[in-house]
């Protein structure tokens, strides 16, 4: 790290005593965070830690260039705090969440609305933004959508077919996971971590496991970390293949849509070979997973991986060759690189706007410290770019799995987890298939979890979808929505 910063440095997947975290009065803390963001750094997480009657703000920033994370906290305060969103749009959703969870009001926040809670009026009610003009009409696509997808409310302001403004109201999948974690980890915690977002089970479970291991001061055995990396890449393969198929399905291109649907099932079955569950439930446990793959099981997995990769190659070739598909994908749902940086996009959505952001590359942890996966980037920022980034990631994950399955480290995959250190802060980032999953945990004096903050990549990216739709035709919304394919339950927790 070639420049100084007032924050404390912290590498991904390690812990820091709560006392060593630098502390400033509130205005000075916010000024420091603002300064770092001005320098182009990224805000991973900003959350409140209640302390007695007052509240303390904690900020976790990622210095991608410096390959390190930094943390800082404010002194306890009560009442309101000056909003960062005025100058840095990245923080707008975090501040709304702090207001909703702890009641501290961000002063002159431009868009202070409920994030997920039902303030007596329900998530999809209240003063939606309205465009004034005689010929404007609203299209409200409510919580229950036409297909089999999660509930979310989209309020379009349209002049005929053209969308002028889209406002997204979520919170329907809110199950109160963070509230249940206080005083954890309980018996059900690992199962709740696996069901934060079902299709990102491995990423969330790995982040939770490495956070606890950091708090306990140990590290999972190498074979367990290797197994987690294999499962993470299999999960990425399955979801990206599913997305390519869904994108083809949205433009009614039947060859790829039907093929990719089946191949996604095959990749999920590969994960099921390791742990019996198609989504990898039970594979990752703090301190190393219970299941171990025998050599012949891994060999069989290797062959079936080859056939599936060949099939997805064939399906994708049809997609890229069809001119009618290309005309639908290009210049639809366009996001500029500047917009992506300002709102802090992560994952394939950011990489499709030309931003080189990948936790496996910038903040390697676990097995990714030893095996590199090149970052897949595409410059245009439209649906085509997002589809191409997914295709590149399928190829590179396939390559990574071929290498790693041939050179498996030996050793035990299970080791007991010592008790957690008291008054310690740990942060773990994992590159889920939708982007950076960030778990931050703070233990109390008794070694139990005092505050646990989960940030799903969709938390950063939903604003991106709302911006991508401005000026588009409303008939292109399902295509843009599927090109992002964000998680509703990851956002709602």
């Amino acid at each position, binding site marked *: 790290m070639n420049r100084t910063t007032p924050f404390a440095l912290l590498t991904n997947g390690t812990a820091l005593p709560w006392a060593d975290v630098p502390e400033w009065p509130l205005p000075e803390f916010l000024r420091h965070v603002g300064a770092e963001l001005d320098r182009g750094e990224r805000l991973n997480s900003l959350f409140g830690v209640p302390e007695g009657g007052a509240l303390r703000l904690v900020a976790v920033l990622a210095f991608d260039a410096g390959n390190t994370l930094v943390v800082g906290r404010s002194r306890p305060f009560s009442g309101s705090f000056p909003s960062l969103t005025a100058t840095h749009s990245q923080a707008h959703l975090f501040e709304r969440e702090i207001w909703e969870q702890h009641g501290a009001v961000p002063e002159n926040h431009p868009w202070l609305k409920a994030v997920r809670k039902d303030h007596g009026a*329900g998530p999809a009610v209240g003063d939606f933004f309205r465009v004034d003009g005689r010929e404007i009409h609203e299209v409200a696509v409510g919580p229950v959508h036409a297909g089999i997808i*999660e509930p979310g409310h989209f309020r379009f302001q349209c002049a005929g077919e053209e969308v002028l403004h889209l406002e997204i109201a979520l919170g*329907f999948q809110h199950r109160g996971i963070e509230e249940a974690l206080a005083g954890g980890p309980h018996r059900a915690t690992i199962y709740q971590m696996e069901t*934060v977002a079902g299709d990102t089970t491995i990423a969330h479970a790995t982040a939770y496991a490495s956070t606890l291991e950091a708090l306990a001061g140990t590290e999972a055995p190498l074979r367990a970390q290797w197994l987690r990396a294999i499962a993470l890449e299999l999960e990425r393969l399955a979801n990206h293949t599913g997305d390519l198929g869904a994108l083809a399905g949205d433009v009614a291109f039947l060859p790829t849509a*039907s093929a990719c649907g089946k191949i996604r099932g095959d990749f999920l079955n590969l994960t099921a070979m390791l742990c019996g569950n198609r989504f990898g439930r039970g594979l990752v446990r703090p301190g190393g997973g219970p299941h171990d793959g025998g050599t012949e099981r891994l060999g069989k997995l290797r062959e079936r991986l080859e056939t599936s990769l060949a099939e997805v190659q064939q399906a994708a070739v049809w997609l890229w060759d069809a001119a009618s598909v290309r005309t639908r994908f290009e210049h639809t749902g366009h996001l500029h690189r500047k917009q992506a940086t300002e709102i802090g996009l992560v994952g394939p959505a950011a990489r499709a706007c030309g931003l080189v952001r990948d936790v496996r590359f910038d903040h390697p942890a676990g097995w990714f410290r030893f095996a590199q996966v090149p970052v897949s980037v595409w410059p245009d920022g439209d649906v085509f770019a997002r589809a191409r980034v997914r295709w590149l990631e399928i190829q590179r994950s396939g390559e990574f799995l071929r290498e790693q399955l041939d050179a498996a480290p030996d050793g035990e995959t299970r080791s007991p987890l010592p008790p957690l250190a008291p008054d310690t802060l740990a942060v773990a980032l994992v590159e889920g298939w939708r982007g950076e999953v960030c778990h931050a945990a703070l233990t109390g004096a008794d070694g139990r979890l005092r505050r646990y903050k989960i940030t799903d990549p969709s938390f950063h990216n939903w604003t991106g979808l709302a911006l991508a739709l401005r000026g588009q035709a409303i008939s292109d919304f399902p295509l843009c929505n599927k090109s992002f394919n964000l998680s509703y339950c990851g956002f709602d927790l």
Partner: protein
Amino acid sequence: MFVHDTLLNRLKRGCATMAYPAGPAPALPERHGGALRVEAAKCQADCAACVAVCPTEAVTRPPDRRVALDLGRCLFCAECVKACPTGAITQTGDHRLAVRRREDLVLGEAGNEQLRLAGVLDEKLRRLFRRSLKLRQVSAGGCNACEADTNVLGTIGWDLGRFGIQFVASPRHADGLLITGPVSKNMELALQKTYAAVPEPRIVIAVGACAIAGGPFVGHPQVHNGAGVLLPVDLFIPGCPPHPLTILDGLIRLLGRLEESGRKTG
């Protein structure tokens, strides 16, 4: 030429739909374990090893009565199987889990070592929906894994369409609801309105541990612990998430197309 290439490739690959239910059922992943079996007789006198291990209190052992396992709350994590010293709780590897009544999922009593499989719909509904069942899916909370596995049934391998079962866009066209997720408080109104919008006669199917009893989020103040609290449920399919084969078996068992399809194909 592109068109010619795709057509030739398709015809070469032939039909990728599985023969089930006419042919043999595809194998579950061998570490999946399938259904559970509870012989309360084998329990030692005061042993409660399994109760301490279960994340959602699915296993209970009240002081005077024998051990009881509620498969509706069970996440099939098989921790209790590992923890039980005498092997009272075992995995049968059976993929058939669908039941018609909530109490059919409670195992442990003398005659109820295993779950009582779902029977066919009553005659009037069966004759109406046997060949054409249109379902409206409602995702009310949950983690999107059950939705993913229900979606997989539409792909070419499982091909739900061949049974005349289809997921439709509007509840007006639907004959029933397929609910996933623990019905969060925020989704309660939407679920009620969707149910009201479906014309009678209608059925309700709860898929996944969340929709039956709240799954890993049982007891959270933000959820209703399952669809049964709000709506009359006709079919429960436990699992977290239930394997697509289990969901498919539940659906065609409900319509009575399982045994008669044994006689002829499709």
